């Protein structure tokens, strides 16, 4: 696919996605709001589940790893649970963005087949809804870290940058995957299995410092490492930017490449959506 035609298709697709997202910002925000209320309505606790469910997971991981495996040893000078929170909180979001965002178009097929709806905004509003839920979890997490951990520093501000990077990356990946999963249900299953693997291959519950040699490069090549370690960096370490500037350039270069792939696939497959969904 590496020829002039493909690059042209990628650009055209990317422009289609950008234009229809830019034109429908209000609709996207409104749909994100509905998506959020939809996900949590009908239950007693409502949106509270966005906090409670992850909290249960955090408690379980803390128990299994800190109490069970590590014998309560602190890590990077803080309690394991305080170290775990800034890594696993962005993971919960990324996991949902990949799996739920990755099937967004298929899951909202009525918008594609029964209405005139800007299709490329579907994964975006889905990711946005998940991001609102992420904020609901992130805010209490920051408060816990501020009270029990290293507290706020000027370095905490870079969290905003990492949140932005996470949102952009997950939107791009959600567009890419949901475009593929719209035409093939297998892709959704593949992504769900893949993210389960990624959870263990990304330094979320284990520290990046424990890998050495060429394995380090393999772990760094995973863009999720950049984001997860970025959150942790902003919230725990009195330092600017995780890794080098080169690593940041790598992350954005990769994101740009994924954008082009997403644009190409969207351009090729979008005309089929209404026919196959």
């Amino acid at each position, binding site marked *: 696919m590496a020829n002039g035609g493909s690059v042209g298709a990628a650009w055209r697709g990317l422009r289609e996605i950008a234009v229809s997202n830019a034109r429908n910002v209000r609709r996207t925000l409104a749909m994100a709001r509905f998506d959020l209320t939809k996900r949590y309505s009908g239950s007693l606790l409502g949106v509270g589940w966005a906090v409670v469910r992850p909290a249960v997971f955090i408690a379980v991981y803390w128990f299994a790893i800190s109490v069970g495996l590590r014998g309560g040893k602190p890590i990077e000078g803080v309690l394991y649970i305080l170290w775990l929170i800034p890594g696993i909180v962005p993971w919960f979001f990324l996991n949902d963005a990949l799996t739920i965002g990755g099937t967004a178009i298929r899951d909202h097929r009525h918008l594609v087949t029964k*209405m005139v709806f800007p299709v490329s905004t579907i994964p975006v509003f889905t990711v946005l809804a998940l991001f609102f839920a992420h904020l609901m979890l992130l805010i209490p997490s920051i408060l816990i870290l501020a009270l029990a951990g290293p507290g706020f520093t000027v370095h905490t501000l870079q969290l905003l940058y990492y949140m932005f990077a996470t949102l952009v990356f997950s939107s791009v990946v959600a567009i890419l995957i949901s475009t593929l999963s719209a035409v093939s249900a297998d892709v959704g299953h593949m992504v769900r299995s893949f993210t389960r693997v990624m959870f263990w291959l990304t330094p979320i519950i284990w520290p990046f410092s424990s890998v050495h040699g060429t394995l380090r490069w393999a772990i760094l090549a995973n863009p999720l490492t950049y984001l997860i370690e970025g959150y942790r960096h902003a919230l725990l370490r009195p330092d600017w930017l995780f890794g080098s500037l080169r690593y940041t350039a790598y992350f954005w270069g990769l994101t740009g490449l994924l954008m082009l792939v997403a644009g190409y696939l969207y351009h090729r497959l979008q005309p089929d959506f209404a026919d196959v969904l």
Partner: protein
Amino acid sequence: MAASPRHAIRVRNLTKSYRIYDSSLGRALDAFRRTPTGRAFTALDDVTLDFPKGEVIAIVGKNGSGKSTLLKIITGVTSATSGTVEVDGRISAMLELTSGFDPELTGVENVYLKAVSMGIARAEIDQRMAAIIEFADIGEHITQPVRTYSSGMKSRLGFAVSVNVDPDILIVDEVLAVGDDVFTLKCIDAMEEFRRQGKTILFVSHSLFTIKAFCTLGVWIERGRIIEQGELGPVVLAYEDFLRAERARTKRKRADSEDFDTPQEKRDIIEVSGFAMRNAAGDKATTFAYGEDILFEFDYTVKRPVEALTFCYTIRNAEQLEVYMADKRNPANTVDSSPGTHHLRVRLKSPNLLAGEYLLSGELWNNDAGFYVGYSNKRPFRIEQQDYLGTGITYVGHEFANE
């Protein structure tokens, strides 16, 4: 994108072909291949159509004929392979009334959700909310989650949203099948109101009864091609004829496949073929001038000896009201009933039918056995006239004098 002022929608040389894959993964992989692997299937084949403003246009055709594909392309839900569609005005499409409703949200929330997904501003919905709730008429339930609704309540709400967003063109696809009779009448009332406001409605339904009740124009699509279009009457009649023939064909096929002795069928006794209407000059025609002779002819084959056969014909107007029926027992109309193939030519002498659509039916009768074979079933024809002779069905001549 504006169509000409007289037309709400103009469709030019529209073709839509799909690719069919044996597995869905093949389609995803095709995005990376230069030459696609799926088989092509043509859903619409070079369709050209004009939908005039202020009309209620019925689209008929069997399942899978391409009706829904056409509507989806017009609404912009899917794109055409080639050809153009020009639309003048805001379209509200009811491709499925209850789609887009979330079962967990309440009725009111779902109205917002549906309207937002249609791209309508919140302020505009707030304005129309009262009208929507009134139209839906589901009382207290409007504040309950939609999952507690009956299917009728869901369609009421869906219809209420779709008609209250002030569209210029309303597209209704098979939605009246749901809901009770009262709701159906309400929908028809709402659409009548639309028509009065000079708005255009495209209507797809399998209920020819509903179509006849309120459509003005018709389009008949079969296998992705337009078979007939124009005034509703002839289109529906041609379509009904087609359906009847189709039914007869499947019935016959079933009969052929049965090897036990089946009861004697009419076609085993007399078979009719080659029916045609001709004008006075002898050319095939379905349009005649006022007062012109109308000729029709057909072949019939007598396969088993029958007693006297008489022919008979009936003329009805477009509302199926009988204008004239010949006496089927009139011995003067006896035709050749000897075994073999015969040709019959009939001349209706200068009928005084006024301009309009009429239907010609006719049979060959064996009155002793009460047995008949039809040669024409409500075949439409048209009378045109130059001079205005008054209204009604037939011209009644007169003389007068002041005495």
